[in-house]
């Protein structure tokens, strides 16, 4: 078994127009920048994949990562909990222009919907959002005297995530808090594409330390010196300040 692909372009070749794409990361932590860049480049060159539904905690910052996808015009809908950031103009402008749809989901509900999608649980009940605008139109039921809101699973055609170590069988580890949504998204997508900082031999990751078991992973590409979204944003802010001074 070998899930390693040498080229990043090959890794994302199966992503098509209109797909739902889960993208790992919380802000810049865990954002798979190189996979996203390859998608944006492909879209600019070929016009595909467009009309995507993107699932992420946020809706982009600055002009890199998901913000670059939105600026390129390839995102039709965002499913997220917090579409604001230090510079969320990419999303905000298109949202106000009516050019991008938003499904706002409380953060813990978003995580649990994705987990449920990967676990074969079509719906569940949560106390979160009961009595709020977010719960409008959703079934409510009482358990042990307390009201709960029914939420449905969330699945995707593809997940693109960033890992620290990977082996050819698809076992993954992550770097610190960059883990966030990635293990859940890997479960919930029909196909999971991973950029890993280092590919190691099967067995090199202690089975006790595997975070995402290989069964949830389809394709791995090694990106040995991955860029970090927050570091990129801060670097470009510094350069701008320098240019203005």
């Amino acid at each position, binding site marked *: 078994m070998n899930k390693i692909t040498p080229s990043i372009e090959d890794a994302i070749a199966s992503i098509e127009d209109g797909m739902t794409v889960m993208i790992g990361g*919380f*802000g*810049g*932590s*865990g954002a798979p920048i190189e996979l996203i860049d390859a998608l944006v480049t492909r879209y600019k060159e070929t016009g595909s994949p467009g009309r995507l539904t993107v699932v992420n*905690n946020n809706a982009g910052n600055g002009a890199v990562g998901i913000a670059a996808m939105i600026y390129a015009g390839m995102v039709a809908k965002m499913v997220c*909990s*917090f*579409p*604001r*950031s*230090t510079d*969320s103009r990419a*999303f*905000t402008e298109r*949202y*106000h222009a009516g050019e991008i749809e*938003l499904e*706002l989901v*409380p*953060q*813990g*509900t*978003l*995580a*649990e919907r*994705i*987990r449920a999608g990967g676990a074969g649980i079509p719906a569940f009940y*949560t*106390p*979160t*959002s*009961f*009595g*709020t*605008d*977010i719960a409008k139109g959703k079934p409510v039921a009482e358990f042990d005297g307390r009201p709960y809101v029914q939420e449905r699973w969330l699945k995707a055609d593809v997940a693109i995530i960033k890992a620290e170590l990977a082996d050819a069988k698809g076992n993954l580890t*992550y*770097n*610190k*808090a*960059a*883990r*966030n*949504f*990635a*293990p*859940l998204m890997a479960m919930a997508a029909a196909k999971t594409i991973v950029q890993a900082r280092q590919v190691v031999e099967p067995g090199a990751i202690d089975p006790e330390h595997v*975070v995402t078991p290989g069964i949830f992973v389809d394709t791995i590409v090694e990106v040995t010196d991955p860029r*970090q*979204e*927050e*570091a990129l944003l*801060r670097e470009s802010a510094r350069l701008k300040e320098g240019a203005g001074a």
Partner: protein
Amino acid sequence: MTAKLTNAQIAWRAAQDIQDGAYVNLGIGFPEMVAKFKPQGREVIYHTENGVLDFGEAPPAGEEDWDLINAGKKAVTLNPGASFFHHADSFAMVRGGHLDVAILGAYEVAENGDLANWSTGPKSVPAVGGAMDLVHGAKRVCVITDHVTKDGKPKLVERCSLPLTGVGCVTTVYTSLAVVEIIDKRFVLREKLPSISMEDLQAVTGAKLVVEGACKDLIVPEV
């Protein structure tokens, strides 16, 4: 209007009620300040929604690891014994009743415990983050806030007028003038600044303040 507590003093007061050994989530922004005033000798373990338990202070400038951040997307450090986990486990800690205290900001708090703190209306892009999850599950859900809005309107009200974050969820409110507990859908006044009269405090509060037993003086050092 009489003197009122600064934000730092409100944070100090809230910090005094965090017990030794507590697991605590501090909301983004003003609530993060509470960590600065943890009483000496108490051990507190901080949780952040994005998947870290037992994080410490910010690293020195230039030493940030941007894969090690809190929910406010600020760089943090780790204490010995820290752990990482994915988002579903993180919110299991939240909704599953495992946190002792959550501290949040507020636009409005109602006497029935309803909280409005995520949306000021339909004009802006809606963004909720983890607030709607955090108000359910923590054993104490505390609000820290100025007693009134910038233009002097009460923030403690009979019923919230802004979109709700949660229903009947707030247990304690620490304001710039008073400490108020919510018991049986009433504001029970526990402490007030000695310099403000009951009448003046009631006048800037949008719902009835009930006094049960003693109402202590709210005394906070300069911080």
